[in-house]
């Protein structure tokens, strides 16, 4: 980096900080009692010092001064990479699987709870990944299917006493039907029009859940939903529930993997890349798009049924737009269309707020900031899918 460029960066940093001060001061400093500067300068001081340290570090790193420190790290990275590339995939998977299986033995309750959340979101993320990552349909109301799944299990088990294992496919089936209902009128729309319509559908489902007292008990939600049982063994403890969702997640991962490399998966990708061309090549876009909605919804249905069993309670608060946005964020952040990417995205977005729990009130602030930052650093996601065509300008 030349001195001129470096100067430019420092200037940009300075202007940014100045701008930040201008934006911050009115919020903190103007009070009915008069103008005040102390508070603002304190907050600004922290931010400025942090920014300058980061800048300094960045400059030093760019200037190559840190190479000495980086070299061993890079060597280790290289060694790991070499080892990773030599190891057959099945071995890596076996290690991951083994870790997942013994996980509850090593950890406490809270970690189980977080792990369960992660796995639930893995199912949701992979389901949404079919709709958005493979078929390229932007869906902002995905959480509605999750809600349908959850309420299906809750109602079936309470009113008809059906077991969890029987309800699991039934929930998925109902969610898939909901997927088709939502999918049908939206098939003619594209892009952002689709986004707002799916958002609208998601809201409609939530409002109905909140208001149809006779069926859903409205805002009170449904209480005392039974936990799953098998041959008289009840999955009462958190760690046993962990194994249930682990099983569901593995089934989901395998099915999505198979779908991904099937004829249908290729057809979806064709639709994503160029719908008109796909149609001209004889792909039945109408049916396939509907199928994408239905398949995506199916996995959300599984996750929903589990969610109801795990919480023993379902209420409409769990199925808001923000939740849809969260799942969407996981998929995009991880890397659309790639299974490990989605899993990484879920890990990042579920684990981060939990890690930040210590920050209390600053938790969501940091979360939002990190989300933007991650997109700026890796716009294609943490682990982009291989088959997604790389845009030339993104190449490194």
């Amino acid at each position, binding site marked *: 980096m030349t001195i001129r460029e470096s100067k430019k960066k420092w200037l940009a940093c300075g202007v940014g900080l100045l701008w930040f001060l201008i934006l911050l001061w009115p919020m903190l400093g103007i009070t009915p009692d008069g103008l005040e500067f102390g508070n603002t300068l304190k907050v600004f001081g922290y931010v400025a010092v942090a920014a300058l340290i980061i800048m300094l570090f960045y400059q030093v790193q760019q200037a190559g001064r840190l190479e000495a420190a980086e070299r061993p790290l890079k060597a280790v990275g290289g060694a790991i990479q070499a080892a990773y590339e030599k190891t057959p995939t099945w071995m890596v998977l076996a290690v991951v699987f083994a870790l997942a299986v013994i996980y509850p033995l090593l950890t406490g309750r809270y970690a189980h709870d977080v792990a369960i959340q992660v796995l639930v979101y893995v199912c949701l993320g992979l389901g949404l990944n079919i709709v958005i990552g493979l078929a390229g349909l932007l869906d902002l109301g995905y959480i509605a299917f999750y809600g349908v799944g959850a309420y299906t299990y809750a109602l079936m088990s309470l009113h008809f006493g059906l077991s969890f294992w029987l309800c699991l496919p039934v929930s998925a089936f109902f969610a898939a039907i909901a997927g088709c209902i939502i999918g049908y009128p939206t098939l003619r729309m594209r892009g952002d029009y689709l986004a707002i319509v799916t958002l609208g559908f998601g809201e409609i489902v939530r409002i109905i859940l909140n208001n149809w007292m006779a069926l859903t008990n409205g805002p009170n939600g449904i209480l005392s939903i039974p936990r799953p049982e098998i041959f008289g063994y009840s999955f009462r403890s958190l760690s046993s529930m962990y194994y249930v969702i682990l099983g569901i997640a593995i089934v989901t991962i395998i099915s999505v993997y198979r779908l991904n490399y099937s004829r249908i998966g290729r057809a979806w990708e064709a639709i994503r890349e160029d719908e008109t061309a796909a149609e001209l090549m004889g792909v039945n876009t109408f049916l396939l798009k509907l199928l994408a909605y239905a398949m995506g919804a199916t996995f959300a249905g599984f996750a929903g049924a589990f969610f109801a069993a795990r919480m023993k309670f379902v209420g409409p608060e769990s199925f808001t737009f923000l939740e849809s946005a969260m799942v969407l964020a996981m998929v995009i952040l991880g890397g659309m269309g790639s299974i490990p990417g989605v899993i990484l995205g879920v890990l990042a977005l579920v684990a981060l707020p939990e890690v930040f729990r210590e920050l209390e009130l600053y938790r969501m602030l940091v979360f939002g900031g990190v989300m933007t930052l991650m997109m700026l650093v890796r716009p294609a996601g943490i682990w982009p899918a291989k088959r997604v065509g*790389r845009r030339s300008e993104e*190449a490194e």
Partner: protein
Amino acid sequence: MDDKTPILELKNVVSAYGRIQALKGISLKVYDGEIVSIIGANGAGKSTTLMTICNIVKAVSGDILYKGKRINGVGSDVLPAMGLCQVPEGRRIFPRLTVLENLDMGAFFRTDATGVKEDVERVFDLFPKLRERSRQLGGTLSGGEQQMLAMARALMSRPKVLLLDEPSMGLAPLLVKQIFDIVKEINSQGVTVVLVEQNANLALQAARRGYVLETGNVVMEDDAAKLLANPDIRKAYLGE
């Protein structure tokens, strides 16, 4: 500026779309007042050359000199005010602006309202068709009219150097001839023209000198007449 310094010069310019190198070291010179044609097959890098000059595609290395000054990295939006103006491939008129508004956009950086008004009249004289259509939306014009509008819009900035990309594309032969006549007319008013064309025959007939591009390299440069006479060229680009 003496006659020896070219008004526009490229020295060993390399540019790339991501990892794919599009220009592998182009050097060319354009002197004040001439018409220079750049010919070549599809994908030879002709349009990329113009886009690189205007900094839409970033030059990775090499120098782009305009009036002897290095203009690498100068913002695309600054160049028209310096007298360097491009009519890009596919015309790219603003479809939901009227013809008059399109022309106004051409003179965006200019602040002399009366001068702009005069120039509108001047280009209407040059392209009388446009005067009839001045209140129509750009997107409703026919292909030939759009080409005329694109050129007229470029003229609104009173360019010193006009970069013309494929003005003949998709036009009927009669129209093509008309367009080339106008190019010569513009040139005779003192505007230097760089003409990128697939229609090598017409382009070389109109130009004083020519460059032949192949896969991102200049493979030949000469007077237009000599290029026209070159049997290799005739075989490769003129279909003989």
